[in-house]
């Protein structure tokens, strides 16, 4: 995220240079627009800088989340990533005449659960519609979606940003969720430009999607990226979507416009092709800046679809749709309205209980959501909010952290550093997940316990950690014994070492005796150097104080 802001300011810088070249006499109002870093790093400064005629970005998102289910939305063919082409296609998915849609109960429940997680109103009656367009990966010539009355409406997503000078201030923001609708995914096209043909794989055709439409409540790429990240965590916690962007399970389109605060929204463009969270922020910030540039030059922003090119970092117009699209929406004649029930009491007499989707039951099954989990971690363990973000962001890390705590008496506030710095640092460096860690939670707990009980010093503990990482399977006590890393607490041995240090540093001793007690730390460092960090610091301090006081 920091990188994206840096990139954005660099971009702005270049743009400014160009503008100065092009319009040497115009004063550059453009400077601080949408540089999110600026805004947070110096809030007071921005307030004075911001004039009413300044253009700001407005961002709304449309997110397609693939429902994590065994079978497709309207057919019983399996849902799987990277299977042989066209091996997961039923006659319905291939739109053979005479086939009919049969709705998957799991997909309905997933959409209801997702709606509930965002505090949506669940429509007890929702409708299916056909949206028509011609494309080879949509064999029916239309997509079944929910245009008029989606399954869930009017929700809210609360997400947080880390701001402030040290980026350790948690800023809470909200974005309204307009609706959650069920719809079919399309197949995949492989374009063969050389032979001028398109290869069609219908494995994905008909997979259930939840389209989440967010209101334009965000103002920059970083906010959008943070909102998407939170959404991703929520969907993963619910299990309704696996949320892997690289496998296309979560796809984001951004609607971007710029305006002066208080004025009506500007003409928007739709940015597609954003396939990673990293590019999302960049694509949006690029597009906001591009539109500001267009307007500053006196031009107008075209309502168009643009694609993000991750190589150049630019958005480029996509092939022009021939005029305005007309999807010819019509009610889906093959599907009666979808009814869900608030509780079992509201079931119609004679209705099949196995068939019914009961909102109340799904609400009961809602798991702990990421924001609640973070609050609980901060409250229970007294850790910093930013640490709770780190823990929750990494799959399995909360469980790991809590497992370590169960086996050590070390304070949670001290354990957190080990988990978020040492462990996570190593994992990231080697691109591993928490479950792949060569050091189990109980092995780490054992190591920390040794440090806590004074058997090893903290610097040695870090050394042992590294050893444990590379020579997996060896326990901390084994390594300590093999390498003779145990804390030197033999009083006589320490006395000798301390004496040597005192004798060879008369100036420091003199300073201490004259009242500069801080110099004692230097002597302590020298002792630790002598013992390779193995000396018991409490004991050393006592001995040194004794030897310098007389």
């Amino acid at each position, binding site marked *: 995220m920091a990188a994206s802001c840096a990139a954005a300011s660099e971009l702005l810088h270049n743009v400014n240079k160009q503008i100065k070249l092009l319009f040497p006499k115009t004063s550059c109002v453009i400077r601080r627009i949408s540089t999110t870093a600026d805004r947070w790093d110096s809030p007071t400064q921005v307030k004075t800088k911001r004039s009413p005629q300044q253009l700001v970005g407005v961002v709304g998102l449309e997110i397609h989340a693939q429902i994590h289910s065994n079978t497709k939305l309207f057919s019983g063919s399996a849902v799987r990533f990277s299977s042989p082409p*066209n091996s997961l296609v039923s006659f319905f998915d291939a739109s053979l005449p005479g086939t009919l849609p049969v709705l998957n109960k*799991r997909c309905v429940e997933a959409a209801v659960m997702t709606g509930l997680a965002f505090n949506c109103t669940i429509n007890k009656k929702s409708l299916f519609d056909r949206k028509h367009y011609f494309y080879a990966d949509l064999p029916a010539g239309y997509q079944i979606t929910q245009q008029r009355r989606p399954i869930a409406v009017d929700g809210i997503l609360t997400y947080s940003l880390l701001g402030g000078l040290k980026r350790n201030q948690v800023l809470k923001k909200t974005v309204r969720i307009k609706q959650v609708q069920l719809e079919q995914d399309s197949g995949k096209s492989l374009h063969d430009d050389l032979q001028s*043909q398109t290869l*069609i794989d219908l494995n994905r055709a008909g997979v259930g999607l939840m389209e989440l439409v967010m209101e334009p409540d965000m103002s920059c790429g970083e906010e959008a990226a943070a909102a998407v990240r939170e959404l991703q965590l929520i969907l993963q916690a619910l299990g309704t979507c696996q949320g892997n962007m690289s496998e296309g399970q979560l796809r984001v389109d951004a609607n971007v416009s710029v305006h002066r605060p208080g004025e009506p929204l500007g003409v928007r463009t739709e940015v597609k092709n954003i396939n990673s969270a990293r590019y999302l922020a960049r694509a949006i910030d690029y597009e906001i800046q591009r539109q500001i540039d267009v307007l500053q030059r006196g031009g107008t922003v075209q309502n168009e679809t643009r694609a993000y090119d991750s190589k150049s970092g630019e958005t480029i117009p996509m092939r022009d749709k*021939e*005029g305005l699209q007309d999807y*010819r929406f019509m009610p889906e004649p093959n599907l009666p309205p979808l*009814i869900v029930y608030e509780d079992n009491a509201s079931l119609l007499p004679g209705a099949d209980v196995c068939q019914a989707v009961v909102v109340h039951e799904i609400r009961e099954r809602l798991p702990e959501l990421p924001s609640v989990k973070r609050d609980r971690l901060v409250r229970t363990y007294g850790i910093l909010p930013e640490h709770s973000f780190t823990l929750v962001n990494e799959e399995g890390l909360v469980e790991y952290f809590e497992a370590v705590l169960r086996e050590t008496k070390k304070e949670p506030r001290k354990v957190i550093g080990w988990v978020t710095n040492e462990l996570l640092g190593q994992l990231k460096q080697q691109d591993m997940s928490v479950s792949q860690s060569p050091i189990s939670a109980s092995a780490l707990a054992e190591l920390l316990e040794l440090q806590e009980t004074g058997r090893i010093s903290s610097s040695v503990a870090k050394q042992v950690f590294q050893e444990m990482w590379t020579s997996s399977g060896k326990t901390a006590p084994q390594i300590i014994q093999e390498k003779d890393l145990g804390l030197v607490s033999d009083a006589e041995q320490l006395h000798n070492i301390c004496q040597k240090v005192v004798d060879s540093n008369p100036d420091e001793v003199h300073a201490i005796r004259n009242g500069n007690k801080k110099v004692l730390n230097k002597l302590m460092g020298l002792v630790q150097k002598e013992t390779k960090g193995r000396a018991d610091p409490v004991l050393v301090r006592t001995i040194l104080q004794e030897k310098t006081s007389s």
Partner: protein
Amino acid sequence: MLVFCRAVVRSCRGVTLDNIRPFHLFNDGYSVTSFHRRKLQSHITCNVCVTRLFSSQPHNPKVPKVATWEPVQDDQLPQPAKIPADLVDKLERLALVDFRTKQGLACLEKAIRFADQLHVVDTSGVEPMDSVLEDRVLYLRNDTAKEGDCAEELLRLSKQTIEEYFVAPPGNIPLPKREDRTALLKHSEF
């Protein structure tokens, strides 16, 4: 209303059935058109005999037993719709059907005129129906895989395949410009 309109569009298609573009993925263009033709026939039969042969409900006395017909005076109808060339373009593009012949246009205008009679019907306070099935319970299926795995069978339907892929033209082929198309369609002019 909806079903009705679609029937009209289909009857328009009937004029220029030969101009229907073959569907990309299925080379069997003939069966697609004959499918439409069958549907068209079934609409006609529906419109003619409204004796509710298949209704399981006892006959509702409010519904006449045979179709009744009262011609609507022309002055009660709105102005006849004119179809500008741009709209023909748009309709052809949306439906992927060519009907730019004198007869095709006349047929469309006649169909719209026919539908104009619906304006006379007072529908205030009547909620439109989506389908005749709207009070039925929507069946929900369990999430167990039971289909698919029939790539060979499906690919056999396609004129062109590469390995296990269907082969389609690149992207959407843009329709030719109006002038080009007029030249193209000269032969179909009556």
